[in-house]
Every structure is written in C-alpha cells, then in structure tokens.
C-alpha cells in the first residue's frame, strides 16, 4: 500500500479545476498534515483518496496494490453517528471484516476503553458531547485497524480539552502502525502532530516538507503568506 503515489490527480466538475494536477508521495509512517486556505482542495483530496469522488484525471498508486479495501478509514469533520448505542456505532464497522461476533465485541470494547468511552458503551451515541462524538468516530476508525487513516479537520469546533484528548488518540493510532493523513486549520495542532506538511493552494501541492523545515523556512510565497496570516484574496491580488 505504501509508498502511496499520487500523480497528476485532477478533479474538475463542469470543467472548473478544483484540484489541478496533484503530485504527492507518502511514506507509510507518521502523521502528514495538509494545510492550506479554504477552498484549496484539502477535503477534496481526502475524499478522492477515500474513493468517495471520481477523479477526472491522474491516479493513485497504492504501492502496487489494486485497492485499499478494508485498510483505509476516514473520520469526517462532522462525525456520522447512528441512532444506536456507542457500542453498536463501533461494532458495525467490523461487519465487513471476517471476524466472529465474540471477536468483534472484544475489539470494540478494547478500543472504547482506549478512547475513554467504555463506561458509556450502552448509552445512545446521539447523547454524547462534541468531543465524545469525535472520540467515538476515532474509535470506530481505530477498530478497523486501518493502514491509512484520513482525518478531515478532526478537532474543528472542539474546546482545548477535547482537542487535546483527540490529539492523544491520533498519536496512539499512529503508534499502532497506521499512517495518518489529516487536514487542519489549526497551525498549533499541525506543529504538535505533524511529521510532514503538505501545503495545498489553488488546487496544487505547493510544498511538501518535514514539519520542522516547513515552519522554519517555507519556500513558496503562498505558504509564507498563509503562515503570516495573510488572506488568500490578497495573495491572488498581489500576483
């Protein structure tokens, strides 16, 4: 599955390019954070990788493997929770995998324990707080034992305490052996979590550097402006 190579990936609904020739290579370890202004195509890139949208050009090479079926998980900005118990919301994600019911139950309880929701296993998932909901969504993804975990702004609209809890879980998932590819607008979070940064702007990868080098010496004008807090329209205007 790795190294994951994205070559010339293009998404242009009605001829309007939103992603215009994305080239990227990802190793199988660590946390890669995608940064970029709104409309840069960060979420779009994750959705294309997850197979939720058809690409209009280019392609993805999954390390020579045909498809990442069962080895990829995604957590959305707004976690999707069924009107079922906390337990059931994790357990159903194991249905496609050939695991016996007893095994599914054990793995579900284990992962709920790790995200601190075991005591709420029988509660309705819809009664959880925002932070708990995101932890539950991460638990579901974690239970699938993914090789690649896609996270779309997992801490958007969470308070600092909930954000810290989510970040701890993301680190644990990485330690468990999953490659994490996530988007965020929180630069502090990017500095805390990222091993490498992918900077997207205008539907293209402007920069792909280690986190340390990116924050120390961003070489593209768009990345420099972004880190200095300049507005995207100003960048376009100056150009």
């Amino acid at each position, binding site marked *: 599955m790795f190294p994951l190579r994205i070559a010339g990936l293009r998404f242009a609904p009605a001829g309007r390019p939103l992603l215009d020739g994305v080239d990227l290579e990802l190793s199988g370890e660590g946390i890669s954070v995608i940064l970029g202004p709104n409309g840069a195509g960060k979420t779009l890139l994750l959705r294309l990788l*997850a197979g939720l949208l058809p690409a209009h050009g280019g392609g993805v090479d999954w390390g020579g493997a045909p498809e990442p079926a069962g080895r990829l998980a995604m957590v959305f900005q707004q976690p999707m929770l069924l009107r079922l118990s906390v337990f059931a919301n994790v357990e*159903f994600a194991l249905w496609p995998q050939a695991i016996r019911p007893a095994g599914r139950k054990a793995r579900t309880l284990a992962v709920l324990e790790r995200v601190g929701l075991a005591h709420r296993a029988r509660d309705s998932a819809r009664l959880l707080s925002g932070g708990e909901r995101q932890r539950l969504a991460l638990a579901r993804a974690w239970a699938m034992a993914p090789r690649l975990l896609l996270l779309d702004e997992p801490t958007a609209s969470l308070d600092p305490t909930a954000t810290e809890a989510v970040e701890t879980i993301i680190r644990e998932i990485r330690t468990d052996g999953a490659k994490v590819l996530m988007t965020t607008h929180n630069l502090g979070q990017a500095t805390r979590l990222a091993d490498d940064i992918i900077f997207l702007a205008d539907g293209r990868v402007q920069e792909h550097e280690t986190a340390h080098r990116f924050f120390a010496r961003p070489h593209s004008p768009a990345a420099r402006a972004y880190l200095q807090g300049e507005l995207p329209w100003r960048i376009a205007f100056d150009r």
Partner: protein
Amino acid sequence: MLAPAISLARVSTRMVPPGIASPYFPLPIPGRHDPASGVMLVLPRARSPGAASRVPMTETLLEAFSLLGGFDHRLLQIVGLSLRVSLTALAIGALIGLPLGAWLAVADFRGRGAMIVALNALMGLPSVVVGVLVYLVLSRSGPLGSYGLLFSPPAMVVAQTVLVVPLIAAVTRQIVEDAWKEYAPEFSVIGIGRPQAVRLLLADCRFSLSVATLAGLGRAMSEVGAVMIVGGNIDGYTRVMTTAIALETSKGDLALSIALGIVLLTLILALNAAAYSLRGWAARRGG
C-alpha cells in the same frame, strides 16, 4: 294571525291520522282534528324544527354507551375480529414493506424512479379496487381459488396487507433515503454492503418507522371496501367494525354503529397518541 300557518300546514286525516307517524312525518304530528272540515289542523311548533328529532338521537347515544358499558358480546366480537385482522395484516405488511422500502432507498438500478412513482401512487390505491383484485385472485376460478379463502378472515388479511404494504414501503423509502444520504460516505469508506446498509438504516430509523407502521395500522383499520368484498360481511364470522358500521347504519340500527364508531375513533386516537409519545420518548433518548 294563525290563519296562514294553519292553512299551509293542513294535512288530510286520510293521509295522516292524528298521532300516527308516516314515512314523511316520522313522529306523531301534534295537532287538533276538526270534525267539521275533516282535516287536521297542524299547530305551529312551539320549539325549533329539529327539537323533536333530538329525542331519538339522545336515546341512540344512550343505547350506544349502554352497549359499550355493558361489553356487548356482539360488539366485542366485531372489535376483536377487526383487531385480529388488522394487526395480522400490519405485521405481514411491515415484514414486506419495511425491507422493500429500505432496499428501494439504497438501491441503484434502472427504473428505480419509475418504481418509486408507482409505489407512491399505490399509497392512494382505492380499497374497493384492491377488494376486487383480491376477490379475483381468491375466487374459485382464480389462481388461489383452491385454498377456499374467499369470504374468510384470511382473505380480509390478504386485502388489508395489499393496502398497507405500499403505504409502509413508500414512507419507509423516504425516511431511509434521507438517512442514507447522510450515512452513505461513511458506509462506503467502511465497506458496508447494501444488505448491511439496509439493516443498519432500519435500526437507525426505527422510531420514525414505527410511526409509519402505525399509520399503516390506521389505514388497515379504517378501510371498508376491500374487506366488504372479500370478507362478505358475514355476521359473527367476517364482520368487522367498518363493515358493521356501514351495514347497521343502512339498517337504521344507529346505536351499534355509533358504539363501533366510538371504538374505532378511540383506537385511531390511541394510535396517534402512542406515535406522538414514542417520538418524544425517542427524542429524549437521543433517537
């Protein structure tokens, strides 16, 4: 001053003897016989024209409540059969309609749109048409005639099932499709197949679907045409509330009709109250 009123109200004694009711004057006509002219002078009514007819209506109502309060055997038998037939039809209809509607919500095939339009149209299927179709199928010369089901409670169950399946399936399709739009990306990434999605979505929408199912019960219990045709309205065997109300009203036995009407109305109200309470309970529990 009374002359115009009296002259307008003159009625021949040969036509209507004093104190005797006629088809046109159901109550004894108050008046005074005039031997000289041979006519009866009808006196102007002291109260409003409808006042006299209130007396039997009150009596009818009292009789209806008496039937209800006395747990009249005939009434209980009719109510019991109605409930058995409608609940059985509902159970079968839910078993067919819920998965059918959920499958239609998540399925992707050519002709799906036409099928949804047809299903929605079938919600308004006239019950007499269903009655005739089921009659043709179950009659001796029909494909299922050898089972001898016509004019029996099972035939009524079949007819009511045919009526409630489109209703339950169409409402289920709409509810589940709305949920499917929300969950489809997550299911796709996880690798949930369509049969598993149907199972999950039915569980997820269970509270909304129970309301849809109760609507199906209301449809089954309140219909009259189909069960009249395939059941035959046989006293003590296939007579249900709606057919009994139709028959007794035409016979003039309004007390039983009203008593059955009160039971039917109470059941429908109870169903709606149950549906409302269920939604509230589910909302409090995060459903």
